[in-house]
């Protein structure tokens, strides 16, 4: 059967053990069932779900979506997925830059890498030409890898690589893409390292055929109008102007700024280290992922990548560091070593709580370096805190360190942190959208009322967004209504928004099934005890009491019911069958 427009119909397999390359043409039904991106990657990961992360047969999956490479706004994103060395759960990262777009233009919906090369290698793809090449770059910091690749390649191409952190076994290892983007979370860089894969470059020259260019143009106009009308995206204080660092003032003013390893929720130096201060110190320019008009990425005058909000907050408030230059240096160092800045910052905060000692500029950078060179902290906060007899110092869920949103200030966020399939992540249900940013409408952030269903629906939606693919930020303005039109215009497949949401539900449930196979259950869908026992920082008319554990558990039980899980958070045969996942 002919694959509909939008998809290429081809998945590229590379086996590094046998050094072989093969093509697969998935049945059309698979595309209709899983869409692309996170959905397709999850589908191909499922049969290998219980493989240990060191098993060479564990696949590393990179997938594009039906919208990738088209004129649909913010569609140039993709997914990198595998099992997380940090958490043991499944782990996917939505990645920007040009990687997914080049892969699609090269003719592939996805790339599946298995095996283990005897010697360090790189993969170089130019349309149909796929090479596995030995490389002397092992051990080289990331900026040097990019410099080398840039000078040795003829055409502009997407580039992704790992750094010393991955090579030295850190479970916080990231994959850096096109210098300024990353698949940062969950230690996926370590999977690359176990395969002896140092880098990947892709150059694609093909076109993505679109079913109805006129309709795509029409819905593109609608989406552009909605984003232009969005204060948070294109407003004078929005992401386009400042990057996500624009959230810094807001989080502090809402008493949600994680400070001193989440012991407080406001930071006295916030105004000194807000995004305006960062911008006046480093005068960045804007940069974006392929196909994006929002361009939320910022690059400092001297080429250093500016931190996103989460890294900005973790390298300042979370470790009580009011030195902007030091925060940027810490972020830059993470970029060079290939470390996840969120988990690195949170692990440093855990270490600081343990030692009771502040970082100096020297000790901070030295400790980060050590994390990428065999230091125990490079295994993440959970292992470190447990080894020192105080698991409560690790502010993580499923072992993944929490980003910079204190859950005592947004109860939907609290529930979403606990229930999502990859661990301490704020973006799977993006409760910030309605609890803080008032989109699509504001909800009561200090209440669990209605949140179980809201979180479930939002998780389904974001699974769709990650599979189409598009950027989640766009959905702070546009909705599935517009993106469904874009999907139909591109593919010619007449799905409704509801059909897409059902696919989103299937994608999440598939992830739940994989996690259950890894032994995850309700015990893992929980928050660090601190949030149930300690007050945050109240003030300016806002009280931040601890979360009520009973209310939290009641909301979580509701979530399980709505998601079709049993009372222990495990998949049920009925829902598995209903979603067609029992094959």
């Amino acid at each position, binding site marked *: 059967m002919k694959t509909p427009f939008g998809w290429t119909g081809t998945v590229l397999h590379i086996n590094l053990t046998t050094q072989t390359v093969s093509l697969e043409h998935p049945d059309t039904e698979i595309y209709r069932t899983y869409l692309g991106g996170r959905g397709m990657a999850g589908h191909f990961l499922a049969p290998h779900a219980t493989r240990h992360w060191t098993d060479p047969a564990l696949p590393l999956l990179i997938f594009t979506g039906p919208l990738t490479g088209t004129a649909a706004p913010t569609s140039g994103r993709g997914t990198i997925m595998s099992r997380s060395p940090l958490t043991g759960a499944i782990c996917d990262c939505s990645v920007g830059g040009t990687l997914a777009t080049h892969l699609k233009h090269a003719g592939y919906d996805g790339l599946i890498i298995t095996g283990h090369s005897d010697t360090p290698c790189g993969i170089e793809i130019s349309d149909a030409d796929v090479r596995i090449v030995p490389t002397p770059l092992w051990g080289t910091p990331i900026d040097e890898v990019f410099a080398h690749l840039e000078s040795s390649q003829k055409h502009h191409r997407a580039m992704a690589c790992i750094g010393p952190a991955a090579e030295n076994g850190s479970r916080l290892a990231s994959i850096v893409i096109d210098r300024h983007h990353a698949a940062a979370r969950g230690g996926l860089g370590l999977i690359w390292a176990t395969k002896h894969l140092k880098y990947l470059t892709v150059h694609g020259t093909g076109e993505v055929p679109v079913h109805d260019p006129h309709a795509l143009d029409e819905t593109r106009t*609608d989406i*552009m*109008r*909605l984003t*232009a*009308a*969005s*204060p*948070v995206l*294109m*407003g*004078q*204080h*929005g992401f386009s102007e*400042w990057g996500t660092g*624009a*959230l*810094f*003032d*807001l989080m502090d*003013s809402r008493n949600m700024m994680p400070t001193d390893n989440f012991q407080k929720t406001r930071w006295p130096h916030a*105004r000194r280290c*807000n*995004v*305006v201060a960062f911008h006046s110190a480093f005068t960045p320019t804007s940069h974006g992922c392929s196909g994006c008009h929002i361009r939320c990425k910022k690059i400092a005058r001297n080429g250093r990548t500016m931190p996103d909000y989460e890294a900005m907050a973790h390298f300042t408030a979370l470790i009580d560091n009011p030195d902007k230059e030091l925060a940027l240096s810490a972020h830059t160092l993470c970029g060079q070593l290939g470390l996840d800045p969120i988990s690195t910052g949170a692990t440093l905060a855990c270490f600081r709580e343990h030692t009771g000692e502040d970082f100096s500029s020297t000790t901070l950078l030295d400790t980060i370096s050590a994390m990428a060179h065999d230091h125990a902290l490079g295994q993440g906060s959970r292992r470190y805190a447990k080894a020192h007899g105080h698991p409560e110092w690790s502010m993580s869920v499923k072992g993944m360190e929490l980003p910079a949103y204190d859950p005592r200030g947004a109860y939907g966020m609290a529930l979403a942190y606990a229930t999502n399939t990859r661990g301490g992540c704020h973006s799977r249900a993006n409760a910030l959208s*309605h609890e*803080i*940013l*008032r*989109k*699509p*409408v*504001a*909800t009561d952030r200090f209440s669990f*009322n*209605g*949140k*179980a*269903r*809201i979180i479930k*629906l*939002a998780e*389904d*939606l974001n699974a769709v967004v990650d599979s189409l693919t598009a950027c989640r930020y766009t959905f702070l303005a546009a909705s599935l*209504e517009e993106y469904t039109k874009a999907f139909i215009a591109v593919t010619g497949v007449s799905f*409704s*928004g*509801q*059909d897409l*949401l*059902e696919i989103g*539900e299937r994608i999440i449930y598939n992830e739940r099934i994989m996690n259950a196979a890894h032994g995850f259950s309700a015990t893992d869908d929980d928050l660090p005890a601190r949030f149930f026992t300690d007050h945050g920082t109240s003030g300016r*008319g806002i009280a931040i009491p601890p979360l009520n554990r009973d209310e939290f558990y009641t909301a979580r039980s*509701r979530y399980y*019911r*709505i998601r079709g899980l049993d009372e222990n958070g495990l998949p049920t045969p009925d829902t598995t069958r209903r979603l067609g996942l029992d094959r």
Partner: protein
Amino acid sequence: MKQLCDMYATKLVTQGLTPPNAPLIGGLDAELVWNRQDPRTDEFAKLFETLSINSLVFSKPAEPYATILDFLANRTQQAIRPEDTETRTFLHDIPICREFSASAMTTSLKKRKAVIIPGHGIISCGTVSPEQGFVFYSSTIFACFVLFFSDYLNQLRAGTLDDEYRDAFATAVGSLPHPHTTLPNLMPGPFPDEDTALAAMAESGRHVVGYGLVDSFFGNISARLDTTLFISQTGSSLDMLEGCIDPCPMDGSATTGLTASSELSAHEDVYRRSDFDCILHGHPKFTVIMSMSCDKTDCPHRGECHIKCPECRSVDGIPIVPGEVGTGPTGLCNTLPPAMASSGAAIVHGHGLFTAGTRDFKEPFEKLLTIENTCRSRYFSLIESYEKTS
């Protein structure tokens, strides 16, 4: 959930959008709850099984909206396409569902946020809160009202009116509420401190909604105090502004305006160019209708008037400017501030009215009401004059 369902049911009634006891609002977390019992809830409950929603709003509209909606629906095949800015940006179009059944409603709601069921009412839903259904419901009514009166004038001009439209128009006009003519007694300025300014903003917001000078409860309000601009948050209810006003330093030293109204840039630029201290922005219906009224039939910009109109148009000297919501090259942030700075009021094509004043909200409120009443009487004078010549 029940509490939220009750709250939005009450709002629909108090804003005159539905008759008393008509709204039916359902909310679902783990259990489905309704604001009241009704035999139709069984049918509506099926929508919760088939759509990924957590709330639903349904009601027959009050007059004149019921007449207007049914008239427009009877003349339209599949979807009504109003051209006001709110519809262009947020609703796109409004489908019509001719069958009162869960399956038919589901099909329509899979595509759009609000659906008209002729003879029955409007149904809309939300994924986060009944507020979404309420907003889509009231925006549908607003858009249809503007379309109905605009089209009537256009067809009268073009000489294409038929008797059915004349009858519906007469019925609708017969049930229009009388215009407000007395002003509320607003707090006098200048405001000595932040708390007083915030209280004054909340007070004027309540009156803007109470006087019906907005589409549902949207619009925005700001006040300048020294170097800080206080502005209502995006999507906030102007009648419930307490806790929903953002302080934005005008020296750009903070990004606390991230959740501020999408018109923050426009407000700020007006203050920079003038001595005004307070701005009100509403969507009064006849002002919007008159902003879209144009007799230039051969204009090359037809269909894009809202962004490209090059004419210097006005209503009694109040300039009408093009511009879309928010920023961007065609954003009203480019067109509104110069127009406002000179006249203290400006109408944005198909969108609404901005008014400014010094010291307090008395002056902008008076301008808001006076201009709307002027637009209303201009509209009916135009109708009368075309009737005479037709």
